[in-house]
């Protein structure tokens, strides 16, 4: 048994801590704020395999299969529901692009299909069909409750012996040669140190700071925080817009009915690089911008009330694909998820835990594609299909 430190108490860190404990490892998990406070608890709840490249489609196909069994495995309600994703085309060119994506997704077993607007209207009763020509519909895409999911993983992790600490900030790493030997952390103003056999950097937007503590260049994995925002309406009757509905041509604007209370979550790809890692203030410009799109997608939303607006980070790499792999002999990274950490977590956590514990994994994760050293080599991947 080895002692492994996981840095970052978001969904990736917590789920990987759980998977490591399942493999019999001793795990210490550090979260400097409260669990989920970074990006997980700010996400839009969506889970999709509708990507446009082989690596992300395969990884998400596997992740969705894990999601399907997660409530049973964790023994808790996590609000997982396969209500689908519906992308909408506004031009003939887009319809052709959708067809090519669908063909690729079908090749790897993702059951997306092109639907007409009559069918789209049945799936989303409040949809304005007029601006759209066709939809790409995958009924197996899904949503889940980020709060319940993270805590379900956390409870099981603790039952398996994980020492999970929140409000505990990692302040330094001790390195000998190509290995990290100890983690220094601060809790209640006191600095302590723990010897470790391996370390996982799962701190997403904060990952460059942890890499620097490991003696690596801060921009070796060039993750930047982009502020993304969401707006939510009061609860509406269920079944009005259960799938995530998105016309990519409209700045990736989307709506999705929250699985918990039925409010409509409205997002858009209106993003700005965050001024700092504390910059999560919502803006009026976004509120107005996103709602203008939302009422064009679903006109009855005009009469709903907005109850809340919040912001979080897409921790983005230059190609919007995460950095997953090994940085030093015993120092690993899974960060830079570019808005896809929540949906990818079940697959990535399993793969990462197997890599750390056994040196290899049976998860269909393309390690070369997500190689954290690709940026230094100047080998960018095709951009992962990002919305919102």
């Amino acid at each position, binding site marked *: 048994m080895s002692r492994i430190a996981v840095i970052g108490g978001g969904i990736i860190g917590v789920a990987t801590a759980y998977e490591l404990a399942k493999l019999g490892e001793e795990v210490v998990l550090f979260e400097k704020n*409260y*669990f*989920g*406070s970074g990006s997980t*608890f700010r996400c839009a709840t969506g889970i999709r395999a509708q990507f446009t490249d082989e690596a992300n489609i395969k990884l998400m196909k596997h992740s969705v299969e894990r999601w399907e069994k997660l409530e049973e495995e964790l023994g808790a309600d996590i609000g997982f529901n396969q209500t689908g994703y519906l992308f909408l085309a506004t031009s003939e060119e887009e319809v052709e692009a959708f067809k090519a994506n669908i063909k690729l997704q079908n090749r790897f077993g993702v059951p997306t299909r092109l639907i007409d607007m009559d069918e789209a209207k049945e799936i989303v009763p409040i949809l304005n069909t007029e601006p759209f020509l066709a939809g790409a519909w995958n009924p197996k895409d899904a949503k889940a409750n980020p*709060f*319940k999911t993270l*805590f379900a993983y956390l*409870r099981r992790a603790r039952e398996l012996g994980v020492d999970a600490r*929140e*409000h505990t900030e990692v302040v330094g790493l001790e390195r000998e040669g190509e290995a990290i030997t100890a983690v220094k952390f601060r809790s209640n103003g006191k600095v302590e140190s723990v010897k470790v056999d391996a370390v996982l950097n799962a701190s997403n937007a904060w990952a460059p700071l942890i890499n620097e503590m490991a003696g690596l260049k801060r921009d070796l994995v060039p993750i930047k925080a982009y502020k993304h925002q969401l707006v939510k*309406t*009061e609860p509406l009757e269920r079944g009005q817009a259960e799938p995530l509905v998105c016309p990519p041509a409209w700045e990736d604007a989307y709506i999705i009915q929250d699985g*918990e*209370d039925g409010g409509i979550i409205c997002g858009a790809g209106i993003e700005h690089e965050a001024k700092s890692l504390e910059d999560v203030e*919502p803006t009026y410009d976004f*509120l*107005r911008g996103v*709602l*203008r799109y*939302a*009422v064009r997608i679903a006109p009855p*939303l*005009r*009469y*709903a*009330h*907005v*109850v*809340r*607006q*919040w912001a979080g980070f897409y921790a983005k790499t230059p190609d919007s694909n995460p950095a997953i792999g090994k940085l030093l002999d015993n120092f690993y990274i899974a960060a830079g998820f570019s808005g896809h950490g929540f949906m990818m977590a079940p697959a990535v956590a399993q793969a990462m835990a197997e890599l750390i514990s056994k040196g290899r994994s049976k998860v269909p994760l393309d390690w070369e594609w997500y190689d954290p050293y690709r940026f230094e080599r100047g080998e960018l991947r095709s951009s992962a299909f990002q919305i919102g």
Partner: protein
Amino acid sequence: MGGKKIVCRCNDVTVEDVERLIDSGVTDIEEIKRLLRVGMGPCQGRTCIPIVISILARKTGKRPEEIPLPKARVPIRPVRVEVIVGGADE
């Protein structure tokens, strides 16, 4: 509803729900808020948050003023979407 003491009227959360969660080890008010959805309804926490803080204080032996308020979200009161987008259809 007989006998239930409601803390949060927006999301029907009871005193027992709050106490059970605290007993399970969740004592950060930001986490309690998200798991029970207290303060996430249309009232924006005006009714429930002070009650949750007093329960949390009693259960953890802290003084209420030692417990920080959870982050307040805009808008302060619910606003109709049409007020924000305006009448103009661009």
